[in-house]
């Protein structure tokens, strides 16, 4: 089979860049352009979005015409969904927890949940490192550096 797409990575990159450029054009379309002498807030972004689309097009075309010389160490089609989801979830949980729950519980959650992302996860080391990190962040950030953060948030009886 003759492959139409020579370098799928560059095709994907080109398409992504064009899509991002289109997004910025769409979002920036309400901004006044002004003139070169007295540029409006929309002037610069519009020029840049055009430039980004152009660069995206070039990358897309090279992807269609030139095979890649370097496959790289990571495959394009394989995605580590578990790691992506759990690490992101850990960070998001910290964000939601920090105000209402306080530093202690949200730090514990962030460390424990992200440790689940590893295929070598072990419940004992996971629990242990979460607790150590809580103790460490209390000592360094609250006691040592005096960050204005409660260990326990208002939902847990702190403030």
């Amino acid at each position, binding site marked *: 089979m003759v492959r139409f797409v020579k370098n799928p990575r560059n095709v994907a*990159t080109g398409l992504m860049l064009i899509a991002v450029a289109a997004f910025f054009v769409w979002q920036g379309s309400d901004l006044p352009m002004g003139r070169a002498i007295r540029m409006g807030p*929309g002037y610069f972004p519009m020029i840049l979005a055009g430039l980004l689309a152009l660069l995206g097009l070039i990358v897309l075309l090279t992807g269609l015409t030139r095979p890649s010389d370097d496959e790289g160490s990571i495959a394009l089609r394989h995605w580590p969904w578990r790691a992506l989801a759990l690490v992101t979830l850990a960070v998001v949980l910290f964000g939601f927890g920090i105000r209402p729950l306080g530093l202690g519980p*949200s730090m514990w959650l962030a460390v424990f949940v992200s440790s689940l992302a590893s295929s070598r996860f072990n419940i004992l080391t996971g629990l242990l490192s979460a607790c150590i990190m809580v103790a460490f962040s209390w000592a360094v950030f609250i006691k040592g550096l005096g960050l204005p953060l409660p260990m326990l948030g208002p939902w847990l009886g702190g403030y």
Partner: protein
Amino acid sequence: MEIFDNLALGFSVAFTFQNILYCFLGVLLGTLIGVLPGLGPVPTIAMLLPITFGLPPVAALIMLSGIYYGAQYGGSTTAILINLPGESSSVVTAIDGYQMARQGRAGTALATAALGSFFAGSVATFLLAVFAPPLADLALKFGPPEYFALMVLGLIASVALASGSVIKALAMVVLGILLGLSGQDVYTGTPRFTFDVIELADGIEFVALAMGVFGIGEIVRNLEDEHTRTVMVQKVKGLLLSKDDFKRIIGPVLRGTFLGSFLGILPGGGAILSSFASYSIEKKISRHPERFGKGAIEGVAGPESANNAGAQTSFIPMLTLGIPSNPVMALMIGALIIQGIVPGPNVVNEQPNLFWGIVASMWIGNFLLVVLNLPLIGIWVRLLTVPYHILFPLIVGFCCIGVYSVNNNEFDVFTMALFGLIGYVLVKLQCEPAPLLLGFIIGPMLEEYLRRAMLISRGDPLVFVSRPISATMLGLAALALLVVLLPSVRKKREDAFKE
């Protein structure tokens, strides 16, 4: 000579037991917060301000300065060890420093950073002592057109940060600029790309972006092929520099020091450019540019020296003119006011012991830093022998609290999560994140200076070429663009012939 009298006065002030103690406390704390990702000198100095109420002004300023340059020193540690640049200046260090660490040369990279910083800091302090007033006048010659030209030059040079495709690197720069434009327009107050989110009114937080695409993205990347390879080389090779290493870093350190000292005096962006500029220059003049991005020691030595030299000379506008060149300097001015000293051009003459005491303390501080940091390298390197599946959740935890503490805002934590995903996608597509970050930092300034220059010149674009400094820099930028594009054009042609 007057300068010797002044320095003698400075050392007589700085060499009291109390002031050495505060200098030590400052650099120690600075190193600590520099090492902790995300935590920067601004919140630390803000928290310490109440304590300085009770101190004499010289001691207070010596301690606060120590925190600032100590943090620059410590910032490179996490960039090298775990690919986490907590500050804009250590983004460049992460590129080759982290690769060195992966090759088991973390100790060498850290030692290079420490020695380069020490040398650069000492030289820059000397320049500060001898040439502060003329350098400050030079900085005043820089108007909006000159800054615009400088930013253009910086952006063109930044393409050299990438080791892969030039076109993709350019696209990343442009994407970075677009992301950087998010927030309130400086000129009209119009919000751009904020999606009616009040937290975005001041734009995307740099620390959240940098820790997302570098730190979190790298963690997912490492977890992807956990099975097939050991993430960190367990065996750590020699901690210190070999003779060959020394030979290789002398040039980069000298050039980086010079570049950083000069760019550091320019308020608003100068110091940030210096590490990027140093990296580009080293890569351009290297006989082995292909080593860059894969653990070149020159790529650590040059930028680290530049960044530390810049940190010292950025005191010049603050001390000689009373004009803050960055948020840390603004805080120092706040500290002076609380101490009852009116900051301004008269401080040098009215408070000579303050000015010269601080200058002298910087030498002491730089010396203390190198003495403090060299023994620590052994401990840092041992950290890397912790198995990755135990280490990375802790890194996630540090990232979270670090990014939260920047503005005490959970929104930044969510931003970091989003950019972690984006950073991973970019890795998949082999788009390098370093040019994106540079575009993000410089982009808004580029627009600001361009529009300001057009306003002040009443719309005359000739303003950029009729002023000598700006014309020279734009000429250099055009030249750099040619140099960057030519090889890829030639390569394309060669490829075409092959087929």
